[in-house]
């Protein structure tokens, strides 16, 4: 599985501004590692970058391809291959109970109601959620909800899992549960996070700042770079190019 961003950029028109606002500067990347993270401050462009991978945000210029499928032209094929988990599971869970939400995910692919039910139960059982299958999603804890959302996405067997700050709303216990769960998945995982412990578990980390990828490399060096950025005044980081793990700097 590989995701290729070819000078992909995102700009949006804003009322009252003559120039479109840039959410993400042109970026070229090839994402092949099994565990990739994106870290950066709030509003830096992490979510925009991740949303491009599932076709939720279309690049204003350039292109994004998942296993050769363009995220704009072949968006359905892309979404079948790329599952997306949102920060707040309540934004994602459409049905009143976990079982029904997982069944909803399967409606397109499994026509037989009995088979759909069996597959939904298997998906929930995988995360130990079968006992909570018929409970209202509002009665579940934050961690349980996040796992139900994950089960609903994984039920359709995507090749790639994109998670937008999946641990932000979770307490320490649920973060650990999510961390262990993600570690056991076969899918390629690309996630954004503010949880630096989780980030350090990954193979490759991108640091995003003010709509630019300012660091791309190993997790330890990336976290150090991010800490340095956070300590610096905002004016110091704007205009920075991409810095690799070897210390070289290049414009994205």
């Amino acid at each position, binding site marked *: 599985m590989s995701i290729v961003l070819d000078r992909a950029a995102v700009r949006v028109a804003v009322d009252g501004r003559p120039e479109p606002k840039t959410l993400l500067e042109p970026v070229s990347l090839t994402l092949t590692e099994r565990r990739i993270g994106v870290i950066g401050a709030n509003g830096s462009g992490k979510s925009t970058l991740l949303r491009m991978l599932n076709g*939720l945000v279309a690049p204003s210029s350039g292109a994004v391809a998942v296993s050769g499928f363009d995220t704009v032209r072949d968006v359905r094929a892309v979404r*079948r291959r790329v599952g997306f988990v*949102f920060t707040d599971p309540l934004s994602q869970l*459409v049905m009143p109970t976990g079982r029904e939400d997982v069944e909803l995910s399967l*409606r397109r692919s499994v026509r037989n*109601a009995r088979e*759909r039910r069996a597959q939904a139960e298997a998906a929930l059982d995988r995360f130990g959620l079968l006992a909570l299958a018929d409970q209202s999603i509002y009665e579940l804890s934050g961690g349980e909800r996040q796992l139900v959302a994950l089960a609903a996405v994984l039920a359709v067997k995507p090749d790639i899992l994109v998670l937008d700050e999946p641990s932000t709303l979770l307490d320490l216990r649920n973060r650990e549960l999510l961390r262990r769960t993600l570690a056991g998945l076969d899918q390629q995982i690309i996630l954004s996070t503010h949880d630096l412990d989780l980030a350090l578990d990954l193979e490759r980390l991108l640091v995003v700042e003010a709509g630019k990828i300012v660091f791309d490399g190993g997790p330890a060096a990336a976290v150090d770079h991010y800490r340095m950025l956070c300590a610096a005044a905002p004016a110091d980081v704007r205009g920075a190019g991409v810095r690799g793990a070897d210390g070289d700097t290049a414009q994205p």
Partner: protein
Amino acid sequence: MRGHGFLLANYVPGTSLVHRTPLGLKFLLVLACGMGSFLVADWAAAAAGLAVLCGVFLLSGAGVRRLFRAVRPILPVLAVIGLFQWWQLGGPVAARIVLNVLVCVVAAAILTATTQVQSLLDGVASLARPFRRLGADPERFALTIAIMLRSIPFIAGAYADVRDSARARGLDRNPRALVLPVFITTVAFARQTGDALAARGLGEAEDPDP
């Protein structure tokens, strides 16, 4: 966000006769009650119909409390309508109108309390299947119903949250402080739901994909 308040009764697992009744018959019951509310002109007949439906609801094992929870949200509205109709058209007409609305709500509550949402969606999709020839997508019909069922409690919860916030700031008598935030929250919710569905490939037209 509060999401517990629900206009219709949530599914109550069970094996009662009402649970086992075919979905088509339950759909017909709701349809007949809706039609009947226009046709029944006698308040006593409406009261008898309501009593029968309450009996059917209790027969399902869903309980009196759930029955009350299903009708409670509309009681204030019915009180206003009833008083107005009483003043305008007299007691019997007011009673008939209020009872007919309750008949429809209880019939819908029987359907939702004894039918799983997925079965409901399968039923809606089956009903919409003949429209496929006209280019309609039955799954989209079903999804629309699912979103509607989800949105009602969300908006009710949003209103409750905004009302509490307005009260805390002493703005509970200001309609703008109530209406605008609920409107904005609802639009944001609609966008989030759209994103969530799109991310899962739900609601897209059926066609062969690579």
